[in-house]
């Protein structure tokens, strides 16, 4: 895969633009359905409308971390190893962290009127908070200096470690909260019997957030790929400036020089 193809983004310009328009349309529809058409909840009143964002945000976060895991596996698998998967994993984790933060913030806004508290030490809440920090750490790890290969391998392994940690964390937090506290006041977010329009709005939310995820993933991927390109080009320029425009600076040898010299030059 050449630098130019990567720069175009994951989806290609036309598909990307279409996705953007579809995302905007779905979000507008979600606003209309969520705020105007869907009826207020019988018990929770208007506060329940936050669910139309909260649940889709949580879904998008899980989707994003799932894609990060998948891309990391594809990167580690020798036959499919490509920087594309590394960048997809990174871009997806970025979007996932944003959606996780959004899930926590929206959940908190909802909990205040309904539960009377901003935060409860409930298993699901704690696991989500740990997840947030887990992937923040992963993103910081990605920002460490190093060659693209070393960063890719390191990040992919860290992503898999984070992924196997999630069920263990969930498990332990679950035990913790059920052992030492009476059943928490955690209503299932969705009553089993929900109004048709409410259910439709929720599914619309899931669709809108999935589209938002895809769109953001493509944009972030494109930025990361451009960044990668810029670094490569700056490095080549730096090497040329130091070595001089002799035969060593020719097109055939730059690739090898780049890989070797990179670790030393990047800050």
């Amino acid at each position, binding site marked *: 895969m050449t630098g130019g193809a990567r720069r175009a983004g994951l989806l290609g310009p036309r598909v990307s633009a279409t996705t953007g328009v579809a995302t905007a349309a779905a979000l507008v529809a979600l606003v209309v359905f969520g705020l105007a058409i869907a009826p207020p909840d019988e018990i929770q009143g208007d506060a329940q409308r936050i669910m139309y964002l909260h649940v889709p945000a949580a879904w998008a976060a899980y989707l994003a971390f799932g894609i990060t895991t998948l891309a990391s596996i594809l990167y580690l698998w020798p036959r499919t190893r490509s920087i594309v998967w590394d960048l997809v994993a990174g871009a997806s984790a970025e979007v996932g962290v944003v959606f996780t933060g959004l899930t926590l913030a929206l959940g908190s806004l909802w909990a205040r009127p309904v539960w009377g508290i901003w935060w409860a030490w409930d298993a699901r809440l704690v696991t989500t908070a740990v997840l947030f920090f887990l992937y923040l750490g992963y993103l*910081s790890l990605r920002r460490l200096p190093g060659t693209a290969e070393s960063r890719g*391998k390191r990040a992919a392994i860290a992503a898999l*470690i984070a992924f196997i940690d999630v069920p*263990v964390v969930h*498990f*332990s937090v679950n035990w913790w909260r059920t*052992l030492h506290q009476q059943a928490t006041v955690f209503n299932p977010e969705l009553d089993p019997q929900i109004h048709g329009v409410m259910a439709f709005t929720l599914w619309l939310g899931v669709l809108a957030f999935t589209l938002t995820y895809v769109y953001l993933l493509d944009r972030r991927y494109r930025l990361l790929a451009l960044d990668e390109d810029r670094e490569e080009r700056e490095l080549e320029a730096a090497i040329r400036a130091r070595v001089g425009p002799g035969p060593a600076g020719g097109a055939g040898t730059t690739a090898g020089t780049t890989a070797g010299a990179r670790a030393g030059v990047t800050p």
Partner: protein
Amino acid sequence: MSLVREALLVAGKDLRIEARSRVTLAQIVPFGGIVVLLFAFALDPARGNLPRVAPGLFWVAVLLAALMALSRSFAVEARNSARDGLRLSGLDGSAVFLGKAMAVAAQLVALETVLGTLVVLLYDVHVSAWSVVLLSAVAATAGLAATGTLFGVLAAGSRRRETLLPLLLLPVVTPVMLGATRAFEAGLEGAPSEAWRWIGLLVLFAVLYLSAGVLAFDALWEEAE
């Protein structure tokens, strides 16, 4: 050479460095001790809070001091190209992982012994089931050493990486913190039957990350600068 012998060589090297430099003994253990004192300042012993929360405080103190010990474990490889030397020695990456984890675990055991004694003496804690306390401490130590060594190699080296280690490690060891604290509580309150599932979790965690380290360390070790 077998894996175990290679691992013991690496562990011996790290512990020899520690025996000569005494960084853990002279800096990290005292640091843990002052943290134990700080908790007493923060929570006011006069109100009788301390015995109740002692297990949690003990493990937080251990975790904070362990972060220093882990940074140290990889800082010794950074100087004088020691890491390159170790890489060129022909030792298996898995052996290096196990060896470094063993050395860290040995230092953690020393740390836990001192801090545990301090907590028992200063916080007025009574242990009713030693077997539970010791078993959970062993399992938690193995888990901490495994995850710590695994993330330590990711975060070792430059200054920026050392500040990254806590952020990487602390969310991952959430189960250890929960499991060890609950198991200790059960061991102190005399309800050891409640502790077993936590000990099981700690053992699972340790096995999971020891295997992950054995599998992945070779790749990480070669890539690290």
